[in-house]
């Protein structure tokens, strides 16, 4: 049992990372990583939705037939996104003002859908919930890393406005690493997203090769 959870955690965070190994969810990855804080916010919102929808799909897995599973999955993901959006807007408004922008974008992310199909539709409730949670955490990790690289090279800051997202206690995270006009503007514009994502994918594979692991080519199907 514990070995199974260990694999789930490892898969989600590193071995089968949604962005860096499977190359899924590229739309929010490109759009929301112009700063580390944006990447973190998008990642956290996605993790919540992924954990909730994995749990629900696993709960209903015996009722969902093969033929209608895709529309049902989409229905569940979209419902969770709307639910989170409405509740946050009403009761966590300060956080919503920062994250609100990202939440509807989760629907356009194919990573939750891929994990529902590959994992939650077949596995029991608790492992499915953990898979959703840790795939989401891995997504958060990748987006924050890409955001950090783009933000440092592009605007010379790191985690700017983090206190808006996480609360005033996190003001210490906001760093000015170099003069703001020294940054390379391209890095916070769309080309920077492709460049940094590509370089980090290469970096991860090099680390894996050095560790003597087989590289998971193509990604998504090997998980399925």
């Amino acid at each position, binding site marked *: 049992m514990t070995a199974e959870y260990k694999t789930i955690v490892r898969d989600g965070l590193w071995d089968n990372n949604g962005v860096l190994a499977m190359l899924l969810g590229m739309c929010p990855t490109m759009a929301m990583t*112009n700063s580390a804080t944006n990447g973190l916010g998008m990642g956290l919102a996605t993790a919540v939705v992924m954990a909730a929808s994995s749990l629900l799909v696993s709960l*209903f897995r015996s*009722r*969902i*037939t093969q*033929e*209608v599973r895709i*529309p*049902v999955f989409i*229905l*569940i993901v979209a*419902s969770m996104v*709307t*639910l989170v959006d*409405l*509740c946050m*807007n*009403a*009761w966590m*408004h300060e956080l919503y*003002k920062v994250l609100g922008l990202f939440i509807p974008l989760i629907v356009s992310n194919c990573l939750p859908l891929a994990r529902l199909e590959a994992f939650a539709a077949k596995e029991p409730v608790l492992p499915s919930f953990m898979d959703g949670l840790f795939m989401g955490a891995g997504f958060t990790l990748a987006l924050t890393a890409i955001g950090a690289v783009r933000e440092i090279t*592009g*605007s010379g800051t790191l985690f700017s406005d983090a206190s808006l997202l996480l609360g005033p206690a996190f003001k210490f995270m906001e760093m000015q690493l170099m003069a*703001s*006009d020294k*940054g390379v*503007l391209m890095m*916070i*514009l769309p080309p920077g997203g492709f460049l940094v994502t590509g370089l980090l994918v290469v970096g991860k594979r090099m680390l894996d090769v050095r560790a003597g692991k087989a590289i998971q080519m193509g990604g998504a199907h090997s998980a399925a």
Partner: protein
Amino acid sequence: MKQQHMLSHGLILGVFCLGFGALLAVTDMLTAKDISARALEDRLNSLSQVIPTTLHDNNLVKDAIVMKNEHGKEITVYRATKEGQITGLAYEIFGSGYGGEIKLMLGIDATGKILGVRALAHKETPGLGDKIDAKKGDWILRFSGLSLGNPPVEKWKVKKDGGQFDQFAGATITPRGVVGAIKKGLEFYAANKEQMIDFGAPKASAKEEH
């Protein structure tokens, strides 16, 4: 047999749709009131940046009217009064920037002097044009206290066009759009003053209610 299959698939899908639809309907019912309260707070908050709260004792949103601006677009004009005297007005103005339309909120006092300007929404280049945002720079604050005669009308331009306002490094189009929008906004008040301070006019809030 196949027909029966189709039916059961449809049924499953239907039940899920019904279930999640109901869930969302309930959530919407539970949150609707709070969400509209938050939206109102946000609006009052952004208004307080262009009309200082010390200047009025009325509810700006309640005493707002809807007008058509020079392009025929409907805008809401928020009106501040203190002891029955009109002390300020705030309305949206629009400029064209590098990345499309720039939406700003302009606050003026009854004589047409600027109380404050804030960018509400824009798509200007991060790091260059986005310095018009009060969160990213203090450029937008320089307009407070100015009016249509101060500086003279022909000086309401960026320096590059022979006016008196600084553009910022690497971006001329954005400041040009903002300065132009403010100038047009002040001219709009000069041309429609009567109507804008007329308290006999139907209120926007009354219109929304029915």
